[in-house]
């Protein structure tokens, strides 16, 4: 009896300890998984062919053939995709929430399809079916990216809408004399800012890193350029990929902190009063 209780009393402690060790281990492995390639990449990009520390890769980037074009193409695609996806998805999601709640399930299913269907299948099919004039334009990629980002964009917006009482806010606005566009602009969009922001961040990150579709559609976007240039100079290519990674992070941080400072500003304004 005594032995039993003491055993029972002692047992949980090592178990808890073991759990903590496991947690640390898993976290460590996950971190290593991300950090080691990153470290290797950074190190490699700051070396020359002889293996010495050097900034030559950084200095050489702007003068490399095709870099500027690829860079601007990626930026253009990122922002056209962003505009396209928001113009399509924001009104659709709001409308479904307000007027077709039963279609939500279907929409959820449809927006998950781009994840289920591999991009390579999608782009090969589209390249067969698209008219010549569209195939000749890089903006075919924007259209494809709108589809590709749909799962993330829909989920961000859906979560954002679910966080507010959309129906009541819309009805309050209508009863106060606002028409549809006024309600959208002054009431719905400002309160969906967080959802729209996270949708935008995901869209930009995804488009700036997309490789498969761009390369099959034969457009040299930044990731495609990096891949091709690797055969010319690995150090420069790696440096560019590191910079594009950091650039994306900076972009995301700026957007998020803009949102934070905006909401902090409004809060401070209220506290002063």
């Amino acid at each position, binding site marked *: 009896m005594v032995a039993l209780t003491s055993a029972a009393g002692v047992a949980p402690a090592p178990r808890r300890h073991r759990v903590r060790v496991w947690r640390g281990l898993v976290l460590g492995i996950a971190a290593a998984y991300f950090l080691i390639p990153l470290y290797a990449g950074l190190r490699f990009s700051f070396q020359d062919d002889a293996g010495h520390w050097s900034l030559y890769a950084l200095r050489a980037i702007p003068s490399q053939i095709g870099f500027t074009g690829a860079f601007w193409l990626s930026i253009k695609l990122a922002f056209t995709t962003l505009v396209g996806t928001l113009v399509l998805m924001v009104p659709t999601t709001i409308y479904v929430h307000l007027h077709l709640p039963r279609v939500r399930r279907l929409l959820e299913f449809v927006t998950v399809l781009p994840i289920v269907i591999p991009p390579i299948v999608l782009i090969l099919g589209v390249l067969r079916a698209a008219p010549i004039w569209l195939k000749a334009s890089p903006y075919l990629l924007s259209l494809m990216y709108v589809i590709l980002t749909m799962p993330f964009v829909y989920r961000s917006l859906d979560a954002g809408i679910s966080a*507010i*009482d959309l129906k*009541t*806010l819309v*009805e*309050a*606005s*209508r*009863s*106060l*004399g*606002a*028409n549809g566009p*006024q309600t959208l602009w*002054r*009431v719905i969009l*400002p*309160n969906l*800012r967080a959802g729209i922001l996270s949708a935008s961040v995901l869209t930009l990150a995804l488009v700036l890193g997309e490789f498969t579709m761009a390369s099959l559609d034969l457009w040299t976007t930044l990731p495609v350029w990096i891949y091709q240039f690797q055969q010319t100079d690995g150090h420069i290519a790696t440096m560019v990929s590191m910079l594009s990674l950091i650039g994306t992070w900076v972009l995301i941080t700026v957007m998020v902190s803009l949102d934070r400072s905006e909401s902090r500003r*409004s*809060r401070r*304004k*209220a506290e*002063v*009063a």
Partner: protein
Amino acid sequence: MSQAQANGGSSGARVELRELVRVFGRTRALDGFSLDVEPGELVALLGPSGCGKTTALRALAGFELVDHGQVLVDGHDVARVSPQDRDMGMVFQSYSLFPNMSALHNVGFGLRMRGVRSTARRDKAHELLELVGLHEHAEKYPHQLSGGQQQRVALARALAIEPRVLLLDEPLSALDAKVRTGLRDQIRSLQQRLAITTVFVTHDQEEALSMADRVCVMREGRGEQTATPAELYSRPTSAFVAHFVGVSSRVPVRRDGATVGLWGQEVTVRNADLTARDVDAVLRPEDVAIVIDPAGPASVVHKSFLGAITRVTVSVESAEVRVDVRSDMARDLNHGDRVALSVVARDVLVSPRDGRVDVEED
């Protein structure tokens, strides 16, 4: 001084709902609902959950289209008028302030939509916040306000547009009891000062009886009785109303023409619509008196102390009757004591025997 005068007295509109029908699938949310509201009057819609109160209010506001029937405001059919053009201020059950705007901007929103210049808008919004006692909170955002404060801002926001009709859908139900009674009085006195036609939805009978000029008791999409609070309580026209408003007990009786026999007494029947012989008498606790009588037919089952009075439950034959007794008298009544009962009311309401009445107990 009141806004009604500033408006040239236009704030009190007459509202008529005529035979409204609204069907959702198999549910008849409104099933021939009619209601007249006089200019400047406050009418409460009272009824159990799901009886169609919100649907009626939304039909009036224009958020719900009806399948049949008419909504008339000052005699004009508003079927083709969209919600934003109906000039109806609405306060919702859930918090409905715009989270991205300060209290002041919330209140000014309706004026902004009407193209009122920003200085005039500010002045008016400040004036209304003062009216609901929240002047010093003007710059706060909804998340910085308590529930009661939010609903007061919502009220100010609805009033800012000087609506023709004010619609309130259980605006107090999310608040705790103390805040609720305070705000109830505030809404009522504002409504009277502004002489604004108001429809107030609630499932709380006390709220309806204490605030309204008239109360409309709804049941399954229809108006069961519309009357002043006093009339509704003392002269309910149906057992449903009697059960829903106040406390009542049912006693099986035999009907003999215009009277029923109750504990050896002949009592006049109030409602003549019923022809059946076997009916139930519906009695209020104050309709009955108790006399201690060792040979009496009834016995005391339960007492609950309510302050000045004590509610005594007695068992008589197969029925249980609740009777209000002055608390000092009730001290002599103990569990199991034999008593006799007598009817002290002028007349009684009868309802069909075993006519089941679906009333939610609070």
